[in-house]
């Protein structure tokens, strides 16, 4: 599905944050050694969704290209809401890394598309992408230790 409007991209971003939070909650339940970090990530997701919504509501006006600022192909960014059933902890971590990479790529692509139009929204997207990069590094460290 292609999304062009700010309203649809913001809703999609919020949905990705909710899905990713669901993934980490599931991971916390299944792998006690990742409980703390997973629940922290899940909570951060909720903050990111709030930041994104606040940036959008704060900046949207008739002077900017709200309906024409994006060209997001959502198929590129889909991921599973929960870790795969059978595999072990290392596979779940790899799945989480893959998910984070998709989310980083979504936020970076969306920021690039809208940077000339949506002012604070692409800036916020890049902040979230940067935070997620830090998260990816943490997950990789955890994977090495496993």
């Amino acid at each position, binding site marked *: 599905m292609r*999304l*062009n*409007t*700010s*309203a*649809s991209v913001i*809703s*999609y971003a919020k949905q990705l944050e909710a899905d990713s939070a669901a993934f980490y909650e599931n991971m916390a339940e299944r792998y006690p050694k990742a409980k703390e970090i997973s629940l922290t990530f899940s909570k951060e997701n909720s903050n990111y969704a709030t930041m994104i919504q606040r940036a959008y*509501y*704060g*900046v*949207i*006006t*008739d*002077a*900017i*290209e*709200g*309906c*024409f*600022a994006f060209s997001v192909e959502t198929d590129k960014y889909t991921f599973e809401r929960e870790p795969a059933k059978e595999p072990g902890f290392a596979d779940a971590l790899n799945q989480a890394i893959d998910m984070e990479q998709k989310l980083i790529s979504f936020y970076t692509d969306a920021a690039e598309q809208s940077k*000339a*139009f949506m002012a604070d929204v692409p800036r916020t997207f890049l902040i979230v992408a940067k935070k997620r990069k830090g998260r990816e590094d943490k997950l990789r460290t955890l994977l090495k230790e496993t």
Partner: protein
Amino acid sequence: MAILEEPVKGILEVKNYIDGEWVESKGEIQDVVNPLNGKVIGRVPISTKEEIDAAVEAAKAAFPDWRTTPPVARARCLFRLKELLEANFEEVSRVQTQEHGKTIDESRGETRRGIENVEVACGIPTLMQGYNSEDIASGIDEYLIPTPLGVFGIIGPFNFPFMIPLWSAPYAVATGNCVVIKPSSEVPLSQMKIAELVDEAGFPPGVWNVVNGGRTVVNGMLDHPDIEGITFVGSTPTAKDVIYPRCGATGKRVIAQGGASNFMVIMPDCNLRATIPALMTSFFGNAGQRCLAGQNVIVVGDDDRFYKAFIDGVVDTARKIVIGNGLDEEVQMGPVRDAEKKKKILSYISSGIEEGAKVILDGRSDFKIKGDYPDTCFLGSTIMENVKPEMKIVTEEIFGPTMGILRVKTLDEAIKICDDNPFHNADAIFTSNGRTAREFKYRVKSGNVGINVGIVAPMAFFPFSGMPDSFFGILHTQGKEAIRFFTESKVVIERWP
């Protein structure tokens, strides 16, 4: 993506808000229709002369107490209103989409702009400060005190039902005046919602009044001796031939904003990737129904390769615009407000063709509506080439989703076309050359000038400018100019022998 829930479920009975009470009108009742599907979502009264008189009387009675209320206390009422508007942001935005048809992004943008005016007016304790000179002669001081005048009338249009009355009302009441607002009878629900929040915010009765209706209410405002001034946004014929002269005849202050036929000047060095979306928003946003919308593009230069790339880009992008229900978050363009307006837009397209323009994207037929809705009020984007400055589609305001394309050799010719047009509301240039941009900005006769910006909508702390035949008056709405408009300069010279 799901379609957002409609806030108006049944049929809202719109009442007048006079002296802090919701009052039934004795006037005839008119349906408020959602242009998306023809569904009646409200009933609005066409109020009588007695009702507008009652509102003015209530405002006049409220004025002495309100003007002596300290500006900081008046600001606190506005702060409460701002908080309530934020809390109801999504609901009031969706109401706009339901009554007008615009997309949810556009409605949220309108809400944000409206709230920004309330925010700016919250600064009234400093905005309203006067100035002084000590010792204009030995032992004599002189100072200026901005003082409120009394009652102001605010007449709103159909295209921005929420925002436009807020270009004036917050400043009017912040400065100590009282207001009577007449929303467009086609889209009265947004102002009703605002009045509910005004009521909740605790403004004293009579400070903020809303009277629904048509000509009788407008005439009642224009003729009323107790109304000190009028702000109006609507068509140029009404602004120029009715509002402006009649305010003059009755000694009222006036801000009369009319129509437009704006140009977007495209230089061959512009960044097409950024320019095309800006043009889509300018020409087709709000279905072209705004006085800041681009109506015609002027492509400068004789670079045919650039021209072809430009035309291919705009036509291809415009063709793909998703048209449908504004509450569907994927939709990029909603319907026009009603079938009559659609008919008028169609007649302009026909007139363009008769005068020699060539349709390269036909929004009369070449469009698809997303979802199962009647096409009564829908149009696609129309793009016409071979447009000449003397054609009606250039000299008159279309107010619909159309783009005419003119070609000239030089920037001088482009500026001349802008300046020779009867309207001077908003013109913009798209270029990567600072010198060209400065030249355009410096020379073009236009109230609002854009550089790589397609909708030149001034923020609330700048005036919403305009020049004839798009504007009649001296001061403008919004910001410091609004503060001046709503106050008289009282000058005091003081000596203590």
